[in-house]
């Protein structure tokens, strides 16, 4: 699948002068499955805004986002749900786990929202790899932010996808845990022949990025 942006400028950022130097804002750009794209930007330059626009969480921008050549604004609620279940997965910067559910339930919910890609024991396998196997039965609100972040990564990887949106996915992880998570993400992308768009503050060499863009 392809995700294209055409001259998108978020309305809140319209007045910012930095937009003219961006590789993304007000430019044309296409992301295909299989590509590992890194978008680097300093704080406040609109990384999360971009991720939310690509995931169709906000509409306050000019320009257009094309989802397989179709204007995302024209998609129905059912089509959007279908895209989120089958083609685009996401790790939010603010994680968005249900605090009253356990870590396992949070992940399981995403596994069974569509026809499951993996058996439920895959949750244990992934959780053990990222070192959160022991807190699966714990309510999300009782877990540390780092643990929640790893749970959010697993939740994104448990479903089918072609493009994975990662909004500062390692912000609360140490080096070792970040590398662990990155390896898992890379493996899961490879299995699906999928790609990702990752936003972060700094440079890194955790992945073999096919493209690096400045926001």
């Amino acid at each position, binding site marked *: 699948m392809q995700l294209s942006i055409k001259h998108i400028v978020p309305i809140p950022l319209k007045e910012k002068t930095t937009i003219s130097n961006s590789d993304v804002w007000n430019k044309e750009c296409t992301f295909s499955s299989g590509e590992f794209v890194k978008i680097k930007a300093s704080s406040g330059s609109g990384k999360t805004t971009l991720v939310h626009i690509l995931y169709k*969480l906000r509409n306050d921008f000019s320009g257009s986002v094309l989802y397989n050549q179709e204007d995302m604004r024209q998609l129905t*609620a*059912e089509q959007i*749900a*279908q895209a*989120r*279940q089958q083609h685009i997965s996401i790790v939010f910067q603010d994680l*968005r786990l*249900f605090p*009253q*559910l356990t870590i396992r*339930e949070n992940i*399981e*919910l*995403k596994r*069974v*929202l*569509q026809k499951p890609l993996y058996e439920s024991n895959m949750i244990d396998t992934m959780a053990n790899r990222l070192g959160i196997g022991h807190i699966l039965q714990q309510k999300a609100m009782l877990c540390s932010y780092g643990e929640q972040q790893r749970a959010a990564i697993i939740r994104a990887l448990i*479903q089918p996808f072609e493009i994975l949106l990662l909004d500062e996915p390692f912000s609360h992880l140490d080096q070792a845990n970040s590398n662990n998570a990155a390896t898992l993400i890379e493996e899961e992308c490879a299995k699906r022949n999928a790609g990702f768009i990752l936003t972060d503050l700094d440079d890194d060499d955790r992945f073999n990025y096919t493209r690096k863009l400045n926001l």
Partner: protein
Amino acid sequence: MNSILKKLIKTAAGRTKFIFAVLGLSIAMLLILAAVQLQENYNSLLNSKTNQDSIANFLVINKQLTNKTYGNTFISGEDIAHIRQQPFTEDVGILKPSLFKASVESFSNRFPFSTDISFESVPSSFIDVQTKDWNWDEHSNYIPMIAPNMFLDFYNFQFSFSQNLPQLTQENVKMIVFKVKIETPNGYALFNGRIVGFSDRITSLLVPETFMNWANKQYGGNINTQPSRIVIKTKDPGNPQLVQFLKDNGYATDADKTRFSKYRQIVSTVVNISWITGAVLLVFALLIFTLFIQLTIASCKNEIQQLIILGASPYQLKKFLVKQFFPQNILIILISLIVLSGIQYWLYGFLLAQHIYINIFISYKTIIVALLVLLILWFTNFYTIRKYIQS
């Protein structure tokens, strides 16, 4: 997935509110179904054979005698056809009066009795006295007669005292043979007569039609033979339509028998009010339940929003929410029907003791209404959920 969603939605909505919503709906449901059942019981009381009053179903009708109708109280063939056409008329019988002078005397000196009398006859199907003696031909030894109970009552409780005569039971009277004298141009024709039964249905001294036809022809001369009284058989003498018809066409009948129509109108009004009350309550209960669904959805708005963000489709959520709320409705209706069946069973026993018969089971119409209400509930639930998920 459902168990996880349940956990999410359940924690957001209040349990007490839910119980109140279910309680409100249950009460309203019970009332509306009870109203239907009440109507059914009422109809069955009015129309079922077991509850029919054998006296009241036969009405003797004549034209009201006023200055206007004086001397012209005959009921024409046209009038009879008109009465026959009415929906409440099941059968019409013509009461034939005797067209000759007659008197009845006793044979015994111990029981001296003599009175002028006139007879009436009516087709046998209108007579409620079952006896093999009810027939007559020219070779018969006596004329069978049916007397109204009130004649005997009048004799036993008034006449006998004033005349110092013995009181008589029905059985005594049936054993007495009377002398029936019919005046002819050449003197008197004498017959034997015997009372073979008593009835409250028609307040005349009845003789078999065969005798009446023969005697009228023999002794009646050329007097007009148009009837002035008829008897109609009707399912429901309390039918307000019948009472109105009689009034509009200037007929008179035994007011006691049609008096029930007034009570019936009152009961009908009460039954209708119970319908309206039930319906209004149902509307309120639907409102409560709808509000409850809205409240539930509103109180877990964040959860629903996040589910949609994560990729739950509106269809999935609608399906889940309908599944969450609709089964309670089925349960409410089932419980209401069971409670109503219990009440009906109790009522059956209670009324049976008073010789009033209603069906032991609730009516199929009540069940149909229950299913219809269930359909309305399903639409309301579905519509509310759809509206709120989409918004």
